[in-house]
């Protein structure tokens, strides 16, 4: 229970923990890592984290609605592989390709959403199974090989070009976050997402179409993952079926760092973005300090635990 007008140290630390962590990291790395505190490196960090940032947006929606999504890495990879295949085979015009991607995203989101909302399968199981199925399907289709369709317009536009000194990839992230922000805070859908994460039973009594909202959330997450897949293709330049393994952990860590509650009902767009940046900054700084890459796993796990610990609530 929140008491107005009275200063509470614990809740203060909890609310602003992300900013403390971010500030501490920036100060630490600025002192110990040469060349860390530069505009160039800042843009570099943002560019490195574009895919995580976009995927986290989907994860945020799912987590606010009280679920969890660990299939978005697989879905994004699927999207990149499909784009690579389509470009390699040729004969497909852009509108048809985009339409096909949208329809596929819709179907995948519909599948996981209805398994969760109508089939009563826990989200973690649904998305775990979905990820396994998609990865398996991609491996069957590609045989584990990467698909190289050459360096086309898409790659040149997204990976090389920049607008107002900021790479286009980052613009995509900003646009996506803007859309997410509007959806979550300015629409009825957004309020419903918060509401069903808070207490779905009460929502049902209040006449909110809980099942429909839940399915829509998964469709949104799947759409977002497809957008991330386009960026992934632009970044790698090929369709690689084994890309983005374990990225869902990054996303969950970022969202939870951003103050979202894993039991649903709480979370914010801007803090999620800051969470992504914090994680990216951590990895970037560790690279500057020449830490062995495998430590990243350990750090990632510890960050998830730390974030969950800070925001854990006693019942």
């Amino acid at each position, binding site marked *: 229970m929140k008491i107005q007008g009275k200063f509470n140290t614990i809740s203060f630390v909890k609310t602003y923990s992300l900013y403390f962590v971010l500030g501490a990291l920036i100060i630490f790395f600025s002192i110990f890592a040469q060349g860390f505190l530069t505009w160039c490196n800042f843009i570099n960090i943002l560019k490195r984290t574009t895919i995580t940032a976009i995927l986290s947006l989907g994860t945020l929606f799912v987590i606010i609605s009280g679920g969890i999504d660990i299939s978005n890495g697989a879905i994004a990879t699927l999207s990149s592989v499909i784009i690579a295949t389509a470009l390699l085979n040729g004969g497909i015009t852009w509108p048809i390709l985009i339409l096909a991607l949208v329809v596929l995203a819709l179907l995948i989101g519909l599948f996981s959403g209805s398994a969760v909302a109508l089939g009563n399968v826990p989200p973690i199981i649904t998305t775990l199974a979905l990820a396994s199925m998609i990865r398996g399907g991609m491996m069957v289709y590609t045989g584990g090989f990467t698909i190289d369709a050459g360096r086309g317009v898409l790659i040149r536009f997204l990976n090389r070009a920049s607008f107002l000194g900021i790479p286009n990839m980052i613009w995509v992230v900003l646009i996506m976050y803007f859309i997410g922000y509007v959806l979550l805070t300015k629409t009825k859908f957004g309020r419903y997402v918060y509401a069903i994460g808070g207490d779905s039973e009460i929502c049902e009594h209040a006449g909110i179409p809980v099942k429909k909202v839940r399915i829509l959330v998964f469709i949104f997450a799947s759409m977002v993952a497809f957008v991330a897949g386009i960026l992934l293709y632009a970044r790698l330049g090929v369709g690689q079926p084994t890309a983005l393994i374990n990225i869902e952990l990054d996303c969950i860590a970022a969202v939870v760092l951003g103050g979202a509650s894993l039991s649903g009902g709480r979370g914010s767009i801007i803090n999620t973005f800051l969470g992504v940046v914090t994680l990216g900054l951590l990895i970037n700084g560790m690279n500057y300090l020449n830490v062995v890459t495998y430590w990243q796993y350990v750090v990632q*796990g510890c960050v998830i635990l730390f974030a969950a610990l800070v925001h854990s609530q006693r019942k």
Partner: protein
Amino acid sequence: MQKGNTQKKQRMKYSLLNWKESCLFRLFRNSQILIPLLFILCFASFFVPHFMVKDNILNILRQISVLSLISIGSTLVIITGGIDLSVGSVMALVAVYTATAVKAGTSFWIIFPVAILFGMLIGMVNGILIMNFTIPPFIVTLAVMTIGRGLVLLRTGGSNITELGNKAFLFLGRGFLLGIPFPIIILFVFYLFWSIVLNNTRFAREVYAIGNNEEASKVAGIAVRRVILYVYMIAGMMASVGAVIDTSRMNTVTAMYGNGIEFDCVTAVVLGGASLDGGSGRVMNTLYGAALLGIINNLFNLLGVSTYWGQIVKGLILILAVMTNTTLKRRD
């Protein structure tokens, strides 16, 4: 209405040769998984050559013994309403320890207890984080899974540990006792132990009670924290037993060993009819579930289909199994 029902039940109870009271019916009722299992067994032995051959059956049994051992631990965790995603990393950590120790020439009688303690220790970390810090089980075990995998990669540098070359140790996973593969015997011993524990002890009743209603259990005076701590420790222990046997069977440890096995574990438990909401689940049914998965894997091998198809099929099976379990539970 109520009265009529009880009368009907009474009548049924006393009539001889009643199908609904026969032990076969009860067997199928308690283990619905047996129906698809038997169906697949019949199908495979009719249509797939080399399936019902002694060597192949022994092979399947040896392959499923490790999954079954770990799944016993996962069953307990799922009965309490939790989930353990860290088993794969626990296995990898224990396997790396075991392989290093065997190579260093340590006696098996030291390796095995230490490995078990190691697994229990990680389980304890899981349990403490879940109960004392009130973090959801899947987040804790997801984080421990990542950290564990990172430690394994750091320790091995991403490469494999091969050629352990200790005959006595290799017997554990490859040997035969009275014509039966040794892992099967270990599985049988552990199964016997856990099914006796789960059917007779107070601990087991507390585990089921917590799964059914944690709050009520707390009010009823069950030491919820301690029971859940034990459950995760048991899961860690069973994972390490499986890892030691697997290390011996494969004579190799890869850096990505055990990756994704938590998926098979959950599938086996859920196929056995356990609900992920907690409160239900049986060790024997989990073993049937593991057997079904093993047979499906084996069929894919025999038919020469890519194992990645197996991944797709297993994903579908998992979702369908959970859906049927929840709908059946709701109907009850």
